[in-house]
């Protein structure tokens, strides 16, 4: 009985906003928070559990990481390399089907959050 991936301790940073990257990550065990910095406030964008992925944008573009991922408690994380992923979808585009579905859910969720935010009366505004 053994585990795969790499073990991260509670609070350990898995990827840092602004770093460059060439892989995505899949949670094998434990929990991960994806956070971003707004001024000096930290916003939790998503809380992820087993089988969830993050850092997927690095598979498609060479931009810097747009958020930070941090282990909440002990977490085991498996890397998916850009090269393996691209080789996979060039042979079998349906490999990306699940990712596309989850990413569209995430967009839906972010749109709902943005709409809720837009509809909240802003303090200090006249």
């Amino acid at each position, binding site marked *: 009985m053994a585990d795969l*991936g790499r073990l991260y301790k509670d609070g350990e940073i898995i990827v840092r906003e602004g770093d460059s990257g060439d892989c995505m990550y899949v949670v094998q065990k434990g929990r991960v928070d994806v956070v971003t910095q707004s001024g000096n406030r930290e916003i939790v964008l998503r809380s992820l559990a087993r089988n969830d992925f993050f850092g997927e944008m690095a598979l498609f573009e060479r931009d810097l990481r747009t958020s930070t991922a941090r282990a909440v408690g002990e977490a085991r994380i498996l890397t998916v390399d850009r090269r393996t992923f691209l080789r996979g979808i060039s*042979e079998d585009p349906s490999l990306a089907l*699940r990712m596309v579905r989850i990413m569209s859910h995430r967009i839906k969720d972010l749109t709902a959050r943005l709409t809720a935010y837009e509809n909240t009366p802003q303090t200090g505004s006249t």
Partner: protein
Amino acid sequence: MIATSRGFAKRWARLAESDQYSLSSGSRVAVIGGGPAGSMFSYFLLNFAEITNLDLQVDIYEPRFFTHCGPAGCNHCGGIVSESLLQRLATEGIELPSHVVQRGMESYTLHMDVGTVRLNAPGLEKRIAAVYRGNGPRESEPLHQISFDGYLNELAVEKGARIVRRMATAMERTGDCIEISCADGHHRAYDLAVVATGINSHFVESVCGSTARIRQPKKTTTFISEFRLGRSMIEETLGNSMHVFLLDIPRLEFAALIPKGDYATLCMLGDDIDDELIQSFFRSAEFKQCFPDAIVPPHACHCLPRINVQTARYPFDDRIVMIGDSGTTRLFKDGLGAAYRTAKAAARTAVFHGVSSRDFENHFWPLCRTIDADNRIGKFVFSVSGLIQKARFSRRAVLRMTASEQAGDSPRKRMSEILWDIFSGSAPYREILGRAFHPAYVGGLIWNLAASNWPSARRRDSETAGQGV
């Protein structure tokens, strides 16, 4: 005018054919063999069917109980799930649970007569899984479900497949269906028959020629054995590393010792493996030094399974497709990965295109051809590695170059990357060969050939041969 009407008639005939040979709700699919190829085919077929609102009935014929220990429950293999397969499965949302993984591997240890060197995975991540195909070796404690094949069976069943605990004995074309029969008189007609019986079954022989224009794949014999060392001894001696041997033993292509729970699995690939070859490997100092006091313990169980070394021609016909080892696999490496790739390509074809010979030829055969062409390059790669195996001066260079890359912190470790990909089977052979022609790699190799064979270096090497680097 005549030409136009002929073209129209052709298209019309093709349209009629595509309707005749497509799966619709209520269609029945027989999968002969519930190994990795059969289970993954069923899983993806039902997954695609769900997306397209198709209601299919899938029967997996599999007589084996993967809960049994020893040969009765085992599909005879080294049990390495490659890095690329693990990553692809993770992308698909299929995770290998810890009760299925016997050990997560974070490195390869290369043993040669000129020394030993370890190749670490980036960040010492456990990127490769060692699994049992059944429920462990013959004399192991019967545990709860630990089999990789059993786990994949479960995934297929969760998607809606039904396991038929029978051995299929015949397959016949009857009208517009394929009929599957078993020795006990059971028979049933299907709209599609998927042959996933691997290479160690006689079923493929019964299919070839009589029911379809299919020629069997070519095969060769291999050797597997299991050694009981106990968990703590394995930790101490082998660790989380796959041990590979590059030795100058005639007819030996490749040997690997894979640590698992309480056992270590030895796999030998080569040219007609026989007792003489096995014994000369067992006598080698490099193999012995992997065990406590350099004594090879008696093996708990062993087998001589066959391996596919050339693609079946052509692994499909109307309503028939052959996947995994019974059709096409990768030469000597990542057979499980090839089972996944061919299974998924066949499932995609059946749901999105159809089940005629033409559909498989257009949408399934190209993948088999790609694998086949890559295997030809693989043969060349293995013959080069065979030359390295034979020449001590080149083994010295490989050792020196790998060891210095592993000790340094340069981001490009060209020799290590090539060796890693050859051992793990994670990259196509074409890509490996391409990297071997890179001027920086060639330059590094020439430099290391000179540096490691300089008389003073040779003297130093002979004093330290056999030690870990």
